[in-house]
């Protein structure tokens, strides 16, 4: 019976597993290395956490929703900032709306193509993945370093708070704000059952397209987080977060079938993967084992969360 109740809890709070994992790993990490630098650690976590959150709205929107183009889009926005904006005197706060607009536009293009062409989202966003990798090579022919800009504060301290909490916090804030207007409910409803949403008069296509656009905008924030922590733009890093982000969001309890999950889970999922990697480094375990553990964790998480979703009370 305890198992049933656990399943029930996991279904209601889909990020529960990721939360427990994160807390457990955090404690182990803190024990192993007492000089755990919060600001540094959060800043190194930020790109993956944001990539996972950026991938989430598309998955929640259902219908096989997937966004593989998040990772290269992050690098593209980082490249635009370092190669074009900063050298041309647009490196200040004005860069933020520009980068967010670029991200949102690319995401919207994904969403519109999926609606118009009626091809599976994986195909559209995989195409976008390749196109953006090409674009990145064009924008950043060789790795570019940037001198000290304000962005580097985002990997240190901004007053009393770690700067990375601002980048990680931005998507969470937007997401929370969207909970105050009807859009987020519509998104979950579309992901849960698009036929129902359509029959109730919801504009399924618009809702889905906006989900991709939202993800694109979050990816731009991810680009800022990349600049903050590395101060570089490197086209060869385009694919870094693609698969890990999906692993993180699945670990965080977002259903790959749509309609369930959320951004907090994705951030926590990313945190568990990151902390596990950390731990392995301090334990001197080879990176090859890390990949095996990632794979196993992903499988277990999807089975557990998916199983909990199915273990609903029997319908009379």
């Amino acid at each position, binding site marked *: 019976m305890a198992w049933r109740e656990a399943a029930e809890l996991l279904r209601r709070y889909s990020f529960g597993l990721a939360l427990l994992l994160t807390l457990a790993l955090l404690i182990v990490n803190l024990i192993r290395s007492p000089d755990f630098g919060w600001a540094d650690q959060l800043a190194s976590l930020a790109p993956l956490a944001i990539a996972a959150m950026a991938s989430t709205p598309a998955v929640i929107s259902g219908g096989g929703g997937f966004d593989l183009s998040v990772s290269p889009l992050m690098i593209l926005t980082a490249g635009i900032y370092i190669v074009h904006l900063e050298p041309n005197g647009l490196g200040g706060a004005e860069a933020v709306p520009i980068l967010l607009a670029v991200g949102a536009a690319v995401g919207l293009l994904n969403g519109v193509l999926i609606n118009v062409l009626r091809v599976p989202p994986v195909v559209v966003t995989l195409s976008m993945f390749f196109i953006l990798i090409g674009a990145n090579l064009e924008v950043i022919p060789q790795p570019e370093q940037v001198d000290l800009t304000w962005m580097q504060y985002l990997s240190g301290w901004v007053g009393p708070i770690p700067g990375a909490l601002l980048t990680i916090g931005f998507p969470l804030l937007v997401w929370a704000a969207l909970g105050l207007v009807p*859009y987020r409910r*519509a998104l*979950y409803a579309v992901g849960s059952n698009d036929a*129902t*949403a359509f*029959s*109730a008069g919801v504009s399924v296509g618009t809702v889905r397209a906006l989900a991709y656009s939202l993800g694109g905008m979050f990816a731009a924030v991810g680009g800022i987080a990349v600049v903050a922590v590395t101060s570089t733009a490197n086209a060869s890093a385009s694919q870094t977060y693609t698969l890990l982000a999906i692993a993180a969001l699945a670990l965080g309890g977002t259903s790959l079938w749509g309609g369930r999950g959320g951004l907090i889970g994705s951030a926590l999922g990313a945190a568990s993967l990151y902390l596990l990697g950390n731990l392995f480094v301090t334990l001197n375990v080879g990176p090859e084992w890390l990949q095996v553990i990632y794979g196993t964790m992903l499988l277990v998480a999807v089975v557990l969360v998916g199983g909990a979703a199915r273990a609903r*009370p029997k319908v009379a």
Partner: protein
Amino acid sequence: MSAVLLRVDGLTKRFGATQALRDASFDLRAGELHALVGENGSGKSTLVKVLSGVQAPDRGSLELFGRPAPLPAGTKAAQKLGIVTVFQEVLVAEARSVLDNVWLGVDGLLRTRVPAKAKRELATAAFAQLLDRPPSLGTPVEELSLSDRQACCIVRALLREPRILIFDEATASLDVATRDRLFGVLRRASETGVGVVFITHRLDEIDELGDRITVMRAGETVKTLDRGAWTPPELIRLMSGSDRVTGQVRETAESGRARVGAPVLRTRGLRLAPGRAEVDAEIRSGELVGVAGLDGHGQYEFLEALRGGERAGGEVVRLDGDREIPIHSPRHAARHGVAYVPRERRTALFDWMSIRENFGMPTLSRDARFGWLRPGATRRRLSRYIRELGIVAADSDDRITTLSGGNQQKVVIARWLASDPRVLILNDPTRGVDIGTKRQLYALLVRLAEEGLAVVMLSTELDEHVELMDRVLVFREHELYRECHRAHVSRNALASAFFGHEDGDGLA
């Protein structure tokens, strides 16, 4: 007479080879409860889909509140016009709360049209009308019973304050108590001037609720009758169109009646759904047995059980001379000569493969020598069936999808005939097949039966049962409701049995 809310005229709609609507015309008055009845496939659901904006008609016009109006494009447009539909499928967003489900689609994406507090109050009030024990508004819908889920769909429709409310067999999923309360809700709604259209297969519902009734048959609205002007036999006659000429194939089929032989398949204590009466049926060699009933009344489950698939209880026994073999899986059934042709051709066909490969799939091992396949052997075996079944194909190496639907169906049948079955089970094999090919299939089935094969066929067309079958098993509410022998099979008798009407035989 009250004002006319809605008038449709001359709606037509074609899906590929099927003319779903030929000429649908009817009007709905303010404050009336208007029943729409007809057999399966008579076009009721298509009519409803056109009115709710789900499908665009090929032709036809609409008048709303006395003025010509464009036909709604999309469910949203229909709802703007005041037309709200509760569909037969229980349409809920499973993972979302009851409250989210009933208000789904009312708000814009950024603008809240109904404040949260009003949402809760209105939803609570609507549920109180409909259910004795309303669910808590925060519960995920997936935790509700089927009936309560459908109640959510009904509440969703009521909350939109429709002027025209359409129920497409929406009572089928409701429990009895909710259904009764729904009728009360509908009566009250109609008193405020709402026009209600409801589709149902239950004559008692029509009698209880209907102010007027429109009968559809074969895509046409045949007649509209006022309350008191109909009797069940009259309705059944209108629905089945028994004044239509039938019986050309019948004579050809009449010839080999003496062919029925020993039993080959028997059900023992078979249950098609938990808690339903047991079905004891016997299938004999050389017999053509029809399986009939309204959609979703257990016919499909019966076929599944016969082919060794899932069942709620009891067993199916294959009789082979003195041997009795209880069938435990489709594979096992196939090994003992029970072949099954499924309803969806696409589940039976390998689209990207050739006609020959599609034909040979289950019997491939016969064409192998020392483990090597010989395509020529398959081709030779196939050519026999191409001839016998009249399959029209240019080259057996062409892709299966180059064939017409009827010919694809024949290839599937040929595939199973090649396994030398003793029982052939077909699930609605003539659906979407043109009339000429249908005739060929009928002739083929009669010939196969004459050769001693037992044929069990589910069909949604009454004429097929009348023309072809030695015996028709009519299912109702997951029980074997009536067994009609050839002499008593008529459109009227079958339709009466479908609707649970007792003295169908006397009507013909």
